[in-house]
């Protein structure tokens, strides 16, 4: 049994690598090419300790599930299919986005073509609140060092953070997906990701910013830039490694422009958040006030001799 498991596991790893490299062999939800790829995809999904007979059962089950019609978008069951994840799957996907590897495509290896909306939604919500809270905390800590800084809860920043992040995770994947669909029509090639898979990739790639934002509390500027750069590198790498198999069949120019736009937008988001929520505060707060207070002192003495004279 153990030997069969090991054999099965190696097969799946090679097969999933093959799947990652040949996008048109992938099973999307509407496709009819089920049996070899379908069974590989499902068996890799559940963690790799299958025996031979269980593979066959799983492939039959997926065949049945995929033949069943997707419920219409007005039914609750339609949306429930996007939340069909377990705790361990979500954690696994998060780990996958934190550690991008060049051969491993996030969509194929982690999502296994079953995107979920739980991860992106709650990661964005957490990031928005963490940004607002730590931005506020920075102001509190700065005020301790320099009481002249006016502290306010700045509650409107929560709204701004929320809207920005949600728009980013919905609109940018929409544009990317639209662009890839257009190129697909031009090139007549199957294989780009569905819209939800793109949203999923973007959502999970933002996870690395949550601990980074908390670390931005440390008021050392070069350390903040270092953490920001690291987070941006990890996050953008995850995006690039995922997009590379889809984009590399295209012309070099289009591929280069697309990938650099993706990275640039990501960098813009990161720096925008850094500047808006963690405004660099003056490090030498004692310099201006003495000048301000010395002026009135200079003005005061002249009037008194005149009044004494008169």
């Amino acid at each position, binding site marked *: 049994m153990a030997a069969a498991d090991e054999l099965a596991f190696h097969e799946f790893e090679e097969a999933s690598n093959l799947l990652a490299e040949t996008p048109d062999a992938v099973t999307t939800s509407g496709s009819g090419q089920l049996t070899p790829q379908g069974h590989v995809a499902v068996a890799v999904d559940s963690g790799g300790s299958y025996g031979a007979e269980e593979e066959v059962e799983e492939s039959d089950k997926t065949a049945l599930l995929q033949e069943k019609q997707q419920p219409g978008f007005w039914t*609750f069951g339609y949306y429930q299919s996007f939340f069909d*994840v*377990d*705790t361990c799957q*979500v954690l696994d996907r998060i780990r996958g986005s934190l550690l991008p590897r060049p051969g491993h495509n996030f969509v194929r290896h982690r999502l296994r073509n079953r995107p979920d909306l739980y991860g992106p939604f*709650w990661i964005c919500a*957490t990031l928005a609140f963490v940004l607002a809270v730590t931005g506020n905390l920075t102001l509190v800590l700065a005020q301790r060092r320099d009481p002249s800084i006016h502290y306010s*809860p700045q*509650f*409107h920043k929560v709204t701004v953070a929320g809207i920005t992040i949600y728009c980013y995770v919905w609109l940018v994947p929409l544009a990317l997906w639209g662009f890839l669909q257009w190129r697909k029509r031009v090139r007549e090639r199957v294989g780009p990701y569905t819209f939800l898979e793109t949203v999923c990739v973007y959502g999970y790639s933002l996870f690395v910013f949550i601990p980074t934002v908390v670390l931005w509390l440390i008021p050392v500027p070069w350390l903040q830039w270092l953490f920001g750069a690291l987070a941006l590198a990890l996050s953008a790498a995850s995006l690039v490694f995922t997009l590379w198999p889809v984009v590399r069949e295209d012309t070099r120019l289009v591929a280069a422009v697309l990938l650099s736009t993706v990275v640039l937008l990501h960098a813009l988001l990161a720096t925008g958040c850094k500047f808006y929520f963690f405004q660099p505060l003056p490090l030498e707060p004692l310099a201006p006030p003495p000048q301000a207070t010395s002026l009135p002192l200079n003005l005061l003495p002249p009037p008194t001799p005149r009044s004494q004279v008169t």
Partner: protein
Amino acid sequence: MAKAAESSGEPGTTSPRPLMRDLKAVGKKFMHVLYPRKSNTLLRDWDLWGPLILCVTLALMLQRSSVDSEKDGGPQFAEVFVIVWFGAVTITLNSKLLGGNISFFQSLCVLGYCILPLTVAMLVCRLVLLAEQGPINFMVRLFVVIVMFTWSIVASTAFLADSQPPNRKALAIYPVFLFYFVISWMILTFTPQ
């Protein structure tokens, strides 16, 4: 109480007036939140009066007395309301989408009632803020808010956890944690002008 019963229109009835009955039900649920046990009272006869009272109280207490509060950025009354209700609805939807078997209003009821410890924390914070400000003041408030935050989470988990399949419990509980964390943050950063 007897006079009220007689004036309900039918002589000789002993049923209490609906208002007193509802208030008693709300009070009983408050007790269940303060001493959370695995009981079904909150779930069986849910009502939204308690959450409404708590939300309005919390939103009123979070108002600052200064005139320029719209620039200074403390949460406005409407913002608190929106956060509490929108947050509760989102968590309920999330729970149902993950496959939980709790009804929409039952979940809203539980989440709303479990704001009670945090409302108490707000009350205590406002009283503590009447004393002079300083690090000790802040430490006391921080301690109270942390204790009440934990109490809220424990209370709501006791009621909500059983409605989820075991492999998704953490996914359903995490948004509750985020929700009460945000409310606690609003309470902790409250500074009267």
